[in-house]
Structure formats: C-alpha cells, structure tokens
C-alpha cells in the first residue's frame, strides 16, 4: 500500500480551516518578503522525478505524473505571485517518444485532460494574467491532441501580464536548428516577396492611369514618381525570380547578388530572434529536480550565460515553496554580489 494514504490524518488536520488559513497567510507573508528584493523575470523548470516518486510511494506511474501536475500548479502560483513574468516548463521531449507506447499514449491523454483543466479552471491563469504558449515541434503533436493545444492557447490569448511556456515536444537542439534555418530563410528570401496576389506593377499602372485621368499635363513631380514606380516594378520582378526556389539556377543567378541580404549582418541576436523564446526576457533561473545534473537538451541556447542553474535533489511532485525560497534567496544574493562586483568597475 502506498504510504501516501497513511498520511490521511495529518492531511485532515492540515486541511482544517484554521490551519489552512494560518498556512496560507504564512506563505503570503514569505512571498511578500521575497518580493522586496530583485525578482527573476524568467524561470525554467525541468520537471524530473514524477516516475521515481510514483515508484518510491508505490503508486501508478500516471498517478505520479498527476501529482507532478499539481506541483506545477503550485509552482505557477508561487512564481506569478512573486512577480515572475515568464515560466517555462519542459513537458515532453522529442526523445520521450522513445518511451514505451502505452506510457506515451497515457501522457498524451493526460496532456489533453490537463490542458483542458488548465483552461477551464482558468482562475489560476486568469488571476495572474498568464497566457499559455506551446513551444516545440508542432508537427510532432498527435492529431487528436492538437485541438486541445490550440484551444488552450486561444482561450488564454487575452492574458498579457505573464506567460506560461509549455515545451511540448521540444528539444533544444531542434530549437536551435529551426532558429538557424529560419535565419537562413530570412537571409535568402527578400522580405516582401512572399506569394502575394497583389502586383506592384498593377498598382503603379493604376496610379498612373488615375493620374493621367486627373490631369493631362504631367508635372515634374509626377514624372519623378513614375520613374520610381518603374524601378520598383523592376525590383519586384527580378526578386520574384530570385526568390522562387523552383526556378532553375541559370535564370536567377544574374539578379541574385543584388537582392539578398548580406549574411555578414547576422548576429547572435538574429538567431535569438528566431528561437521559441524570442519574445521572453532572458532566462534567469534554471531549475532541475531529482538530482540529475544534466541540462538534457532543455534551454541550452538560453542558459549558456547569465542564467543560474540549480540542480535539486528533491523529486518534482515534492517541489514546493520551501524548495523555491532558498533558490530565490541564493539568486538574489548572487545578483547583489554581481552588481557589487560590476559597480566599481564602471
């Protein structure tokens, strides 16, 4: 029998109204105290240890994942209350598809239920104005889960104060690859040359015909505009040919060099702007539970610098305010040290 059932009596006492009131107020007070210092803007969690927790307590694996979800709800509340703007969690790795089939389907089924719950009992997300975003390889999400994902994103779209990033199916290397690919795309296609039905030449023609209708006498202003219009048209023509990936190379080579953006202008910032977390503030804290000291393909690009990495021994379902406070204090303390160090240098 699971030892989780044995704690019923203790739970009953802790859940009694006066005890609950006291605990809630104590937590509020603590969070209020922490808020006096600097607060991280972006925290990432690698929620590891659900299965080990289940094994240790002799409950079903999926039950462990459920408890893990409860821990997530708890953590979200703490983070948003403290004033953290973005919370990123690693829900499902692309590598997780290698797990036994029944577990994957179990996790997917759970994802459906939990996404629905998150939105329907949306008071947690709505209270802190948190919008859900799903980061990762969208085309790997099973078809039956996709509507739930879209619905969750849609229903929290109006929340602008905070963000909950759910990485689902995600790996950091895939993210970096897609960011590099997007950068390459950006630099090998001129920006306004997407397949639009509107033709610039048609527009200039129309304007010209309008103008000729309006006044028969052509003023010098008009003619200069016309010139511009013509050159513009040429541009668009030449670049369309350059752009079209299916066009044979011979045809596009002559005009290419003039149209493409210069690759020397690419910086780390360019690639960064194509990562999934482009709009989020830089990562401040990375937390991994269950005593594993690896990043395991999560947030590699984001935490290589200025992010503080914490590896905790506790398993994810156990994670609570009591584990988070020392981390936050440590972060604030290091932040203070860093500013002290940099202060005299400047």
């Amino acid at each position, binding site marked *: 029998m699971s030892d989780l059932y044995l704690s019923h009596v203790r739970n009953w006492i802790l859940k009694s109204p006066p005890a609950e009131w006291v605990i809630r107020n104590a937590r509020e007070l603590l969070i209020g105290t922490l808020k006096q210092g600097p607060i991280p803007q972006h925290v990432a969690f690698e929620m590891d240890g659900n299965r080990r927790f289940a094994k240790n307590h002799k409950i079903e694996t999926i039950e462990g994942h459920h408890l893990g979800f409860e821990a997530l709800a708890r953590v979200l509340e703490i983070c948003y209350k403290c004033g953290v703007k973005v919370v990123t969690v690693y829900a499902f*790795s*692309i*590598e*997780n*598809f*290698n*797990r036994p089939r029944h577990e994957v389907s179990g996790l997917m089924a759970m994802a459906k239920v939990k996404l629905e719950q998150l939105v329907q009992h949306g008071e947690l997300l709505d209270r802190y104005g948190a919008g859900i975003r799903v980061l990762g390889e969208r085309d790997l999400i099973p078809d039956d889960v996709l509507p739930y994902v879209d619905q969750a994103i849609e229903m929290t779209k109006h929340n602008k104060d905070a963000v909950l990033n759910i990485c689902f199916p995600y790996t*950091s*290397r*895939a993210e*970096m*690859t897609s960011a*590099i*690919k997007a*950068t*390459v*795309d950006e*630099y*090998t296609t001129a920006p306004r040359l997407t397949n639009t039905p509107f033709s610039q030449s048609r527009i200039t023609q129309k304007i010209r015909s309008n103008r000729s209708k309006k006044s028969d006498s052509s003023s010098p202003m008009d003619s200069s505009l016309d010139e511009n219009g013509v050159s513009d048209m040429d541009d668009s023509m030449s670049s369309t040919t350059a752009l079209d*990936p299916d066009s044979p*190379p011979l045809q*596009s*080579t002559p005009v*290419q060099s003039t149209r*493409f953006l210069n*690759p*020397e202008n*690419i*910086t*780390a910032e*360019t*690639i960064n702007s194509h990562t999934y977390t482009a709009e989020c503030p830089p990562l401040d804290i990375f937390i991994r539970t269950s005593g*594993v*000291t*690896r*990043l*395991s*393909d999560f947030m*590699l*690009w984001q*935490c*290589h*610098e200025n*992010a*503080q*990495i*914490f*590896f905790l021994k506790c398993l994810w379902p156990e994670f609570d305010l009591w584990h988070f406070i020392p981390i936050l204090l*440590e972060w604030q*303390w*290091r932040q203070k040290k860093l500013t002290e160090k940099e202060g005299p240098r400047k």
Partner: protein
Amino acid sequence: MSFTAKDTKLYREDERAGHRNLGVKEREKLVQAPYHAVTLRVLSILKHHHNTPDYVRRDVSVFKRLPKHVSIILTLEDGGRAGDALEKLVNEASEVAAWCASAGIPRLSIYERTGILKRYMPQTHRALSHKLKSWFGKYQAPPITLITRGASPIYSVNRVSYTQDQVPLEVILVSEDDGREAMVDLTKVLVQMVQQEKILASDITLDVLDHELSEAVMPEPDLLISFEPYVDLQGYPPWPIRLTEIYCAPDNQGVGYQVFLQGLQKYTEATFKLGK
C-alpha cells in the same frame, strides 16, 4: 554562502542550549559552507596525487567507467589584470591535463571565457608537455595534441612513436567565441551556400549542424567540471552540452584534484536514459 560572525554566535548559543533552539535542518544550513570547505580540504590532503601518475591511476581504478571526454571551465583571475593571472591559468590547465593523461582520459577541453590561451598556443603546448614530462618522465610522457577552432593543431614530436601503455591526449581550447558566435559563423556559411544554390535551405538538418559543430568546434563532452562555487556556464558553447554531466563542488574555490576525482565519481554514479 559566507560564514559570518553572526552565524558563529548563533551556533554557539544553540550549542549551549544543547542543540534545542535550532532544528537539524537549520543547523546543517549554518555549518554547511564551512563543512564543505573542510571536507574538501581534508580530502585534498588524503587524496594528494604527489605528482605521480600511479596514484591517480589507483584513485580512478575503482570507478566502473570513465568519461572519454572531460571538459573544464577555468577562469582568468581578475580579468587578467593581475600579473601572474595567465601563468596561473596555464598552470591549472597543465595540472588537469596531467590528471587526465594519468587517468587515461583521451580528450580534455578547456573552456576559458576570454580565449587568452588560444593566443599563446605554442607556449601553452610547451607548458603542457613540460608538465607531463615532469609527471611521467622525459621519454614516457604521452603525446599531446593541442586543437582549437580556426588554427592549425600543434602536435608533440613523439605523436607517432608512443608505446602501447601511453594514451595520447587531445586538448581542445574553447572560448566564448566558440559558443553563440561560432553558430552565427556557421549560419553565415549556410546562408552563403544557399544563396549560391549549393544547397537547399531544407537540407539543413540537426544532423548536419551537429556534425559540423562537433567537427569544427568541439564534440559533446561526457563530463563538465566547474571549479567555481556554483554552476556558472560563463558563455560555454550551448550546442555541445546537451547530455553532459555537470559537476560543481559546492563552496569550492579554485582548481583541485579532489574536485576532479569527485566529478569522475559523479559520472560513474550517473545513469543515462535518454528520454526514457
């Protein structure tokens, strides 16, 4: 965290009251930092390697498996303004190289943010070879190859004629420029290739990037040891550290053999189950 006079006072008061004031957890917290420092110090005395490869070999012989590729993060002291900062850095690098060579770890990558070692490659190579000679003896020292991105590697003279029991050591120098900047450079090359229509944008896959980055910059290390008091990547290349075991001794200060050993121990204990 630092250990202040206030903490000492608090602990003494608690001791007088027969350890009733503070809970076990709090007491642990109070004594944690000095405890770590003292253990490390004691370990460093007990486990001293006496600059002898045999001692190191004996220490690592108990580990079930050894990493093939160890990476370390070194810090240039005081931003390199102190006169002996570079010497200290080279000395630390050659110490760790000697431990790796003795333990039989064939590859070591040294990350140092500013990349100052790259600017003194011949001198660094000489210092490393010198260290190994003083450890192994002039003719028994294993050959060292010093590699860095964008420069030709430096080999030892005996790189072809070493004996069976010598494990040649490959040392890779890595700096901040090999991180995001290297990926930017790679992107530039890819953009040019696509522009010249040598490849298609859709040809760029994770595989291609991984192969290119691990060939040109560094392959994925098995174990990363930070000699700082807490994990601080300092701009370490983001691509290679995917599954790297990261070890950092809490409250440790400076490069030490005991930290290196503990890192190896940690690696032995770690279980790998990619995504499972």
